[in-house]
C-alpha cells in the first residue's frame, strides 16, 4: 500500500474525524465524496500535516508520517480557490517549490517551469500578476505549482468546482495524462460525480466525520454499504464490461456478461483502448425506457428482463429489472407506470440509446495492469 490510514481520529472540539481507515496504491486515484461539513477537507489537511491526529496512523510508502513535519512529507495540495501567493507572479508561484531544491541550476528550474506550463497551457501567462487571472488560469497555475515538485501524493480539495464545464473537462484530461505519465497518486475531494466517472479508481463516501464506504467505483455505486451511501450516490446503473470496437458504424460494443452486450457511442473515450479492455459503463436511470413490446426503434439496446422490485417516491416510481443476472434501475412517472401495467415478476423490455451508455476508461487501464 502506498498511502495507508489506520484508525485515524482527529478531535477539533466541535468536530471529530472518527476511525478513518483507507488505503491507496501507488498511481491510484481516490475520490472522496460526502455532504458538506462531513470532514473531507479536515481529512486532507490532517494527511498533509496541519491538524494533529489524536490517535491512529498515517503511513506513506510504508513509513509512519504522523510525526514528520508537513514540509518533509512530499505531499502536495491544491485548493478550490487556488490559494496562489499574491505577492508573486505566475512564474514565481510555479517555481516556488523548486527553489528549495539546491541541486537544480537556475536553468534547469526554468526549463521545468516551462515544461509544466506548456502541459497545463499557461506558458503564455507566466509573467502575469496572479490577481488578474481567470478561474481556470489560476487553477492551472495552482496545479503547476504543486505538481512541479513531483510530490508522492497530491491532495485536491474540490479543484474544479469553481470552473466552467469545458475547462473542467480540459483539466480532467490533463490530470489524467500527468497521472499516467508520472504514476502520481491522487486523493481528490469533489461534489461532482463527473469527476468520479472520469478520474476515479476508488471512491470513498464520508459523513459526519466517518468514512462510510470505500471501494472501487463499481462497488460503491452498485453495492452501497448502507442506506446513507445508497441515498447519497443515488440510483446509478454501473457495470463492468469489456469493449469491442466497431469501426464501421462508429459504435463500441461492451460485453457486460456472456449474454448482454451494450452498444455505446462513446467512441472517443475508447479511441486509445485496445479491444477487450475492461471498462466501466454507466447509464442514468432516467435514460432507461420501458416497454411491453420489443419495439422497432432507432435505439441500439433493447433488452428483455424481469421486474424484480418497484419503489415509490412521490410521483416517481423506481423500477428494478433483472436481465440475465444484471440489474438495471430505471425511473417512471406514476401514470406511465400504470399504463404499462408494471408488476413484480412480469417480463418487460428496457430500451437504451447508445448515446446514453457512457464508458469510463480510466478505471479499466488500472484494473487491467494490476489483475
Amino acid at each position: 500500500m502506498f498511502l495507508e490510514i489506520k484508525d485515524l481520529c482527529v478531535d477539533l472540539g466541535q468536530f471529530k474525524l472518527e476511525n478513518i481507515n483507507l488505503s491507496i496504491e501507488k498511481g491510484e486515484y481516490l475520490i472522496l465524496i460526502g455532504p458538506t461539513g462531513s470532514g473531507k477537507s479536515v481529512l486532507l489537511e490532517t494527511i498533509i500535516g496541519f491538524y494533529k491526529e489524536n490517535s491512529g496512523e498515517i503511513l506513506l510508502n510504508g513509513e509512519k508520517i504522523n510525526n514528520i513535519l508537513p514540509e518533509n512529507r512530499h505531499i502536495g495540495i491544491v485548493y478550490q480557490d487556488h490559494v496562489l501567493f499574491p505577492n508573486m507572479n505566475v512564474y514565481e508561484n510555479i517555481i516556488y517549490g523548486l527553489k528549495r531544491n539546491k541541486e537544480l541550476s537556475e536553468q534547469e528550474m526554468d526549463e521545468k517551469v516551462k515544461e509544466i506550463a506548456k502541459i497545463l497551457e499557461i506558458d503564455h501567462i507566466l509573467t502575469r500578476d496572479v490577481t488578474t487571472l481567470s478561474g481556470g488560469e489560476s487553477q492551472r497555475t495552482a496545479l503547476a505549482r504543486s505538481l512541479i515538485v513531483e510530490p508522492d501524493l497530491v491532495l485536491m480539495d474540490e479543484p474544479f468546482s469553481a470552473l466552467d464545464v469545458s475547462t473542467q473537462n480540459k483539466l480532467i484530461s490533463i490530470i489524467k495524462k500527468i497521472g499516467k505519465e508520472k504514476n502520481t497518486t491522487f486523493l481528490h475531494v469533489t461534489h461532482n460525480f463527473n469527476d468520479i466517472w472520469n478520474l476515479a479508481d476508488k471512491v470513498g463516501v464520508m459523513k459526519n466525520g466517518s468514512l462510510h464506504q470505500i471501494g472501487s467505483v463499481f462497488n460503491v455505486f452498485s453495492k452501497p454499504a448502507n442506506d446513507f451511501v445508497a441515498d447519497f450516490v443515488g440510483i446509478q446503473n454501473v457495470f463492468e464490461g469489456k469493449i469491442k470496437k466497431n469501426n464501421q458504424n462508429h459504435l463500441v460494443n461492451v460485453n457486460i456478461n456472456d449474454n448482454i452486450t451494450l452498444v455505446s457511442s462513446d467512441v472517443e473515450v475508447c479511441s486509445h483502448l485496445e479491444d477487450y479492455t475492461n471498462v466501466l459503463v454507466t447509464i442514468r436511470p432516467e435514460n432507461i425506457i420501458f416497454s411491453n413490446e420489443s419495439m422497432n426503434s432507432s435505439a441500439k439496446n433493447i433488452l428483455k428482463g424481469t421486474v424484480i422490485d418497484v419503489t415509490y417516491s412521490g410521483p416517481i416510481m423506481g423500477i428494478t429489472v433483472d436481465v440475465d443476472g444484471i440489474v438495471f434501475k430505471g425511473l417512471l412517472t406514476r401514470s406511465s407506470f400504470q399504463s404499462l401495467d408494471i408488476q413484480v415478476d412480469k417480463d418487460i423490455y428496457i430500451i437504451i440509446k447508445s448515446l446514453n451508455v457512457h464508458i469510463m476508461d480510466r478505471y479499466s487501464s488500472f484494473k487491467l495492469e494490476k489483475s
Partner: protein
Amino acid sequence: MRSKFEWLFIIITSVITILFFIVIGNMFLIPTYEGFIKALFSQQMIFAIGLTLSTSVVSAILVILCCIPMAYTLSRYEFRLKWLFKIILDLPMAFPEIVIGIALLMFLGNYGISRWLGFFGVNLVFNSAAIVIAQFFVALPYAIKMLYSTFNYVDSRYEFVSRSLGYSESDTFFNVTLPLAKQGLFATSIITLARCIGTFAAVLFVGGGILMKTETLSIAMYLNLSTGDIDMAITAGILLVIISFVTIAVMEKYVKEQYV
C-alpha cells in the same frame, strides 16, 4: 434623489466633522506669524523636535520587532492561559496612560528595580531611555492589536501550501506570511510611530519632564503652557497636528482600507 435618512446622516457627519476642523484649525490662528517662526526656531523647540523624533523612531522599531512574534503567536498558536495573555496585553488600552506612567515609574524607580539597575550603573528614569520605555509600553498594545488582526486576515492555507512545497515554518513566515501582511505591518508601523510621538502622560512621569533634557513636543507644550508662553505651547501643538496629519495621509494613500 437622496432619502431623508441619507440627508440626516450626512448632515450629522458634516456638522461634527466641521466642528473638529474648527477646533483644530482655530489653534493655527492663535500665534502671530512672527511668534510662530520665533518659537519654531527656538533652541528649546528644535531640541524637542529632535528628541521626539529620535526617541519615537527607536521605540517604534522596538515595538514592531516585539509585536511581530507576539501578534503572530496570538493569532496562530493555541496554548494555556492565552486568554489571560490577551487581556493583560489589552489592559493598557483601557486605562488612562497616566496609570502606565506611574506604574513604570514605580517599577523602574526607587520602589522597584532601580537599586539593581544602579548596581550595573544603569538608570532608566528621567532620561531618554526612560522616554523610550514609556513610549514602548504605551504603543505596544495598539500595535499588537492591529497586527493581530492583520495576521488573522492572512489565510493560513497560504502557509499550508508553502510548507507542503517543502519550506520550513520560519522560511514560510518570511517568504509568505510577512509579505502578505505587508500592508498591515506598514499601517501598524505608521500608527505606532504616531502613537510614540504623541505619548504624553507616561513620558511625563517616567521621563520627568525636564526642560531641555527629557522635553518632547508634548512635554514642551505642557511646560510652556504652565509658564504662560502661549506661542511656544501652541507651536508645539501645531507641530504635533502636522505630524499626525502627515502620518495619517501617508497611511490613507498606501494602505487599503481592509487592513486598517
